[in-house]
């Protein structure tokens, strides 16, 4: 019989496989804060910008929501994580900034330093 521990290791491997197939390792991972506090600060509109971009054919982006990391007065926050690089942490992101992040960072790889956490 399969023990619970063996079962969970299998489930974990399958889960990781699915995530990798979705492009977790090969693409730029974009995490948008979507807790109550983040949404109140305007993160839903930011999320919509990223969602629309994917709908409109922007590739190379693994989009995910995330909970609140606890940095209240800098919300909405967005992280762009790329395998093998230091994660870039954008703060006080607006829909306009999100569009720029897509154009400059996601498409061209430029980190917009002045919008990152200090």
């Amino acid at each position, binding site marked *: *019989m399969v023990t619970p521990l063996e079962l969970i290791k299998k*489930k974990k491997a399958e889960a990781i496989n699915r995530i990798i197939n979705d492009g977790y390792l090969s693409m730029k991972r974009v995490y948008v804060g979507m807790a109550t506090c983040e949404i109140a600060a305007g993160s839903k509109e930011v999320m919509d910008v990223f969602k629309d971009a994917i709908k409109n054919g922007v590739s190379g982006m693994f989009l995910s929501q995330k909970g*609140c990391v606890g940095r209240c007065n800098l919300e909405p926050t967005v*992280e762009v994580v790329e395998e093998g690089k230091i994660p870039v942490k954008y703060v006080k992101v607006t829909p306009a900034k999100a569009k720029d992040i897509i154009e400059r960072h996601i498409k061209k790889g430029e980190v917009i330093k002045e919008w990152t956490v200090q």
Partner: protein
Amino acid sequence: MGMGEYVITICSGSNCEGRNSRALESVIAKELAKRGLADTVTVSVSGCLGMCGKGPVVIVNPQYTIYNYVTENDIPEIIEEHVCKGKPVARLAVVEDHLFNRFYRVFGDVKFFSKQMRIALRNCGIIDPENLDAYLSVRGYEALAKVLTNMAPQEVIAEVKKAGLRGRGGAGFPTGVKWELTAKAKKEDKVVICNADEGDPGAFMDRSAIEGDPHTVLEGIIIGGYAVGAKKGYVYIRAEYPLAIKRLERAIDDARKAGFLGNNIMGSDFSFDVEIKLGAGAFVCGEETALIHSIEGSRGMPRPRPPYPSEEGLFEKPTLINNVETWANIPVVILDGAEWFSSIGTPTSKGTKVFALAGKVKNTGLVEVPMGTTIREIVYDIGGGIPNGKKIKSVQTGGPSGGCLTERDLDTKIDYESLAKAGSIMGSGGMIVIDEDSCMVKMAKFFLEFTQNESCGKCTPCREGTKRMLEILTRITEGKGVEGDIEKLERLGNMIKKASLCGLGQSAPNPVLSTIKNFREEYEEHISGGKCRAGECATFLSYEITDKCVGCTSCKRVCSAKAISGEPKKKHTIDPDKCTRCGLCYSTCKFKAITKLNDRRKS
């Protein structure tokens, strides 16, 4: 920060520091400078990284390579091989798959986070809370699988006891002991409850934990159910948290589909399910017996204990109640082990505590720190200090049940006992920083107003006592305080504490009593000095127009009390008898011609 290709983190926890970790900092800086890397590599000094036995510890990101037992002689090799050539130094690296501190890979280079240690919030802001795969990929439900495979219920309880975990709802009762009492209760049919009725003004730890990582809380509850022999669990959560409820519902659904809830969990003979019960947001329902009444469908009112819920709780069944944060710690206790967990913290308080840092501090937010961190470190190293160059006056912990600490208490190490000794409580984790512009009497009044509103009315000391205390506080802040009011507040407060039925009344006077103890002179100034030093209590203010006045008439036009008179282009005057001290003229005047005095006698 975070712009370099690499981030080198040096642990400055007390163990690593004892082994001279701080000396590494200058060696690293020197080696980087020698290679012209000083600008591209970020060096950050962290709080305890939780690997005390292996110190000094240095972490190189982005790969999250952990180097242990690092000496000054190892630094050139690490810089040359890892930073310059991109090849981690295998000789010094150690492979660890801890659950705690996962957030470090993303946020470790930011000062606000680098002094934190995250156990309960380890996945918050890191993973998608609505995706079971994301949770599984960070060893989700492995702790549950471990206990179902290898551990008897009593072994799980022994592990939680050995970890030294104590209730994070604020009272600090040893969690393992609570589990043991419930497990040993004679009746067969048992239940577990997750108390998510977070009610302290300004506190949002539980909301964030559930919204950011609902599966962790759920996994903790299921493990608790297994340990005490329960088949049913409840999450009591306030209806004001719709997103948290939605994510928790989703997590429960997903867990059921994956076989982590329901009959024969993961193929074992353990069956367990969880139901969400919504509360209407009464503060008293955070008290365990009132909470039980509320789930049963009765009015949320406490009852005397004993019998304790562990003997006779929900529907008279033995009941285990733990707070959200306590539950979120359980998977880490099981997977990272009791031995590791108990190595973090102080002799009496183990692990970490989450605080909602708010008030007059530059960086507000959720902070999880190891027990034993000082309040000064939280306010200054993490919080970034007081904005606008103001002086700190007090730190309030424990919300409406807690107390106000003074500047002298800033070096208090956070644990249940030392906070109590300093005159406050750990509480569920509210931490409000107060600067010199805030009036302590008004602060105490704010909290008492809250508890007085939330008093359920069952017992007289709480219902009537808090009302009388509030009346006295109100008249003091209105400048109508009389000699003897302070003593009356003290007498009433101590009586309410002793005679009230539940924790709400027993702790309601704390904000008043602690501010009287630490800031008695402010009360005295209000009563006999005619003064509010912070300038917050309007009745003590007086406004005067100086010779700078050019007679623009804008103050006269905004004054709804018609207290200002004067001809255009001539100096205006304020009639103090008509003035309501609203301050509108003061903020309207473009010529800074109006002065504000916070001492009525001087006017």
